[in-house]
């Protein structure tokens, strides 16, 4: 362990410093705010891409860029221990890229008090980078909360319809989820006897002396439901569509795209490897609730008339697949889940951004009142079709999503074939609502309401300021879809080094 400074420190510190610089730049005017904030988003992205290329751990599947600092809680077993492994690396890169896109989009938006808005977004970005870079479980949680608090503020202050209620509901739900998962993490800390929150130490301790059956049962239960609330596991998902419906687009992009993956990441990286017995004890719960996400929420998604609500529900629905991948407990299933998390993060962020662009042009989120937008905005419609195809998981633009879901489905087939039959209906469901939304919004005749809107303000196609963030997301999506090996080789190494995931593979 060394005390030196690695590039991970910069990925966390730069957005936070830039956040305060942005506040200060607010006095200098809009261009200064834009320059400072975009720098704050771009530097971590560049560093994350460098980390992606340079990643070469000493041990296969191990951590790279490891540093460790004492912040004063060493006596409790807490230190700022940073590093990346094959599981966190793709998510780390994804969060940097989504952050850049969200930041670029926010910087050109017409939000009131732009500098404060970007302040919140930058703090959130710093927290997100910290979440995936932390080896210390305490800081993993800490950075999550750091990223979560600005979300509430952004929903409450800059949100749309029902923002007060949505912010309150999100705050209470997510605090409950966070507190329950915190209790689970403390349970691990105390019951392992490691007297450390360090993931590596904890892992070594628990490998030598696993938790007893009762302890692992309740500790995993706490983590499952705590994280479950944060990932919007059915039926604890009701905050999500409401919150995303009300959230300003950049906040929704970062939350739905990245922050929500915290819970799944926690399960994959922490809960399952540390408590290998837990999944077995809770597997029926996981499978049934995850199917609830896929089927029940899927059907609710189909019934949505509001574009943004529909996206909110669809993001809840897709989390079900990730839970199923985890339940399968194999390298393929969990790897598929991670790949899907990355792909879904990029896709859903893109969709939320595009839906706001659509709103600017049609002045509504009601899909009934739209139609024929492709005539006025062909580029926008092309982007949206790509993103929606990806979200459905069709091979083609959404290869990345496709690989993820494919891996999950294959692993479910090996795990419990009947689950696959139920889960596969989700593909049909998402195809139905996805394609229907495309046809409603972009094709067909222009609706009367839309014609009304056009009289008052001319509808233009995407500007370059809008195209750049969308392109960034789409390019990475294509890249991962075409070259999944760039993600999966290190991911597989990391997962195979976890006995709990590799065991299932070896047993066959």
């Amino acid at each position, binding site marked *: 362990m060394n005390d030196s400074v690695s590039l991970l420190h910069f990925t966390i510190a730069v957005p936070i410093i830039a956040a305060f610089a942005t506040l200060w730049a607010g006095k200098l005017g809009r261009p200064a705010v834009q320059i400072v904030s975009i720098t704050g988003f771009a530097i971590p992205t560049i560093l994350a891409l460098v980390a992606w290329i340079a990643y070469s751990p000493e041990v296969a599947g191990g951590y790279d860029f490891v540093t460790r600092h*004492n*912040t*004063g*809680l060493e*006596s*409790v077993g807490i230190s700022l221990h940073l590093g990346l492994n094959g599981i966190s690396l793709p998510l780390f890169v994804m969060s940097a890229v989504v952050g850049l896109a969200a930041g670029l989009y926010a910087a050109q938006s017409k939000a*009131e*008090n732009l500098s*404060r808005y970007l302040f919140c977004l930058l703090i959130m970005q710093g927290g997100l980078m910290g979440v995936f870079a932390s080896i210390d479980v*305490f800081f993993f*949680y*800490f950075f999550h*909360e*750091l990223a979560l*608090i600005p979300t*509430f*503020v952004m929903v*409450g*202050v*800059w949100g749309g319809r029902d*923002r*007060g209620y949505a*912010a*309150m509901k999100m*705050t*209470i739900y997510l*605090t*409950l989820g966070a*507190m*329950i998962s*915190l*209790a689970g993490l*403390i*349970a691990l*800390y*105390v019951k392992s006897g490691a007297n450390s929150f360090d993931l590596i130490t904890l892992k070594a301790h628990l490998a030598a002396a696993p938790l007893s059956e009762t302890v692992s049962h309740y500790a995993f239960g706490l983590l499952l439901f705590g994280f479950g609330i944060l990932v919007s596991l059915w039926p604890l998902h009701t905050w999500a569509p409401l919150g995303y419906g009300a959230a300003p687009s950049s906040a929704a992009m970062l939350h739905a795209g990245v922050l929500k993956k915290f819970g799944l990441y926690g399960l994959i990286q922490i809960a399952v490897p540390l408590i290998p017995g837990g999944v077995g004890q809770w597997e029926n719960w996981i499978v049934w609730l995850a199917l609830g996400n896929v089927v029940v929420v899927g059907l609710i998604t189909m019934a949505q008339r509001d574009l943004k609500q529909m996206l909110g529900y669809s993001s809840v629905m897709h989390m079900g697949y990730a839970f199923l991948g985890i339940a399968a407990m194999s390298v393929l299933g969990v790897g598929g889940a991670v790949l899907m998390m990355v792909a879904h993060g990029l896709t859903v962020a893109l969709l939320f951004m595009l839906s706001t662009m659509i709103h600017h042009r049609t002045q509504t989120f009601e899909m009934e009142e739209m139609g024929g937008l492709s005539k006025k905005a062909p580029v926008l419609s092309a982007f949206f079709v790509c993103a929606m195809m990806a979200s459905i998981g069709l091979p083609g633009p959404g290869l990345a999503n496709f690989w993820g879901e494919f891996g999950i489905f294959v692993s479910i087939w090996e795990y419990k074939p009947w689950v696959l039959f139920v889960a596969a209906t989700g593909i049909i469901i998402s195809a139905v609502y996805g394609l229907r939304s495309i046809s409603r919004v972009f094709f067909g005749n222009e609706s009367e309401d839309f014609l009304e809107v056009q009289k008052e303000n001319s509808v233009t196609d995407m500007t370059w300021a809008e195209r750049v963030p969308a392109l960034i997301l789409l390019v990475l999506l294509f890249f991962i879809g075409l070259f999944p090996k760039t993600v999966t080789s290190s991911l597989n190494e990391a997962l195979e080094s976890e006995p709990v995931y590799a065991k299932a593979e070896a047993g066959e």
Partner: protein
Amino acid sequence: MPTETLKSLGDIAATNSWGAIYPELILGCLALALLALEVILPKFAHGAIPRISILGQVLLLGYIIIFDPAGCCNGIAFGGMIELSGTSQALRIFFLLASIFVSYLAMVSFENKTLARVEYFAITLVVTGALSIMAMSNHFVMLFVALETATVGFYILVSYFRQNTLSLEAGLKYLIMGALSSAILLFGIVLLYGAASNPAMAGSSLDSMNFQNLRVFLEANPTDTLSILGMLLVISGVAFKIGAFPFQIWIPDVYQGAPVSTTAFLAVSSKAAGFAVLLTLTKVFSPLSDWLLPLLSGIAALTILFGNFAALTQRNLKRMIGLSGVSHAGFLLVGVVAVQTVPEATNWVLFYLFAYLLGSMAVFCVLAHLPKEWDADLSLDDLGDLAKKNGFLGIALAIGIGSLAGIPPLAGFIGKFLIFVAAFKAELYVLLGVGIVGVVISIYYYFGVIKAAFFEVWSFTDEDEKSDAPAVLPGQSLTALGRLAIVFAVGGSIVLGFFQGPLGSWLSGQ
């Protein structure tokens, strides 16, 4: 006989190490000096007296922190009357820090009022000294004398706004409840004294009010009914001080009516002193832990739930802060219960107290700067548009409230986190569950404050906002000193959330 008595008195006097309590002595002298200055200084210079008081305290605090951070003379002194330890040293600094904030708050809130002023600052200093001695007392006589010194001082401080009926009502309530609790405490002490000095009992002692002697006796007689009853009454008396259920009944009215500086004083210092005593007494009563721990655990759970549920519907700011303080007392009680099985948790309780001090003081400083003739009437509506009218105060309020709510990355979160770790180590799962429920409930009302101060502002309709703007903007009385105080509280809350280094190692280094 007389020679013998004289000799024993001489022996006791030989342990009188006045140097050990120099900070308290200096506080007392400073109080007298303030009173003298009022006579000496010409009338127009009276405004300087509060500043002199603050300056004196800051110098004293600086001296202690720089030259004597660990306490110069730890150990038992004054014939067993007091015991100085790392904990009492930490609390001494705590009380001094709180007292500086209280003096500042008083300075602000007396600005436009015709009142005798100097006495308030002098009494504040005396009470601070008394609380500090209370935290180091090792003998029931010392404890009671210190407690009464502080309580009598508080009678005056609570009803200081004598033109305001709410303040007078609060004073009366505090007087009656305070006297009642002192009586209960005293009765408990007497029972313990009687039981423990009974020569027929094993382990009895002539000086049975001394904590070490009492502990020896309780170890020998862990099932003595009289002692258990005495213990119950003593704990009840202390529970009144910390505002624990079911002795929290006075809190909302008194906190609302008292001047904001006194509210802060009660909420922070008085509560912390109660916990200091509780930490000492639980060690003394540990032979009775079969009774004590279930009792304290039950109180802790009910206190958390009561505080949070009662605060949910409050719109009056000071009542709300008071009731949220009740729930903080509950969390601290969880820590105290955990200390019995996890000794290192003492430092975590102290950390929580420091975090609570900084968060509370940030909030109280903001309240003191809101334009309202009587701060007892402050309600959530008075926060409307605060963030827009005075961004500095708005952010200070948000961070203070956030720290109280235990939101990372602020100090309050680390405090709560450490308490939870302690509770888990001590296997207090029910209390932990109650704590989590409490945190989630508390988010609701803390969020209400943030919402009132922020969310109604940056909305889309701000058209007719100018027409009904109040004549006085919040924060007009904010001076450089005030900014410094707020920056200290807010900055401390943030820094302790990210980097606990100095405070953490200082607390655990002792």
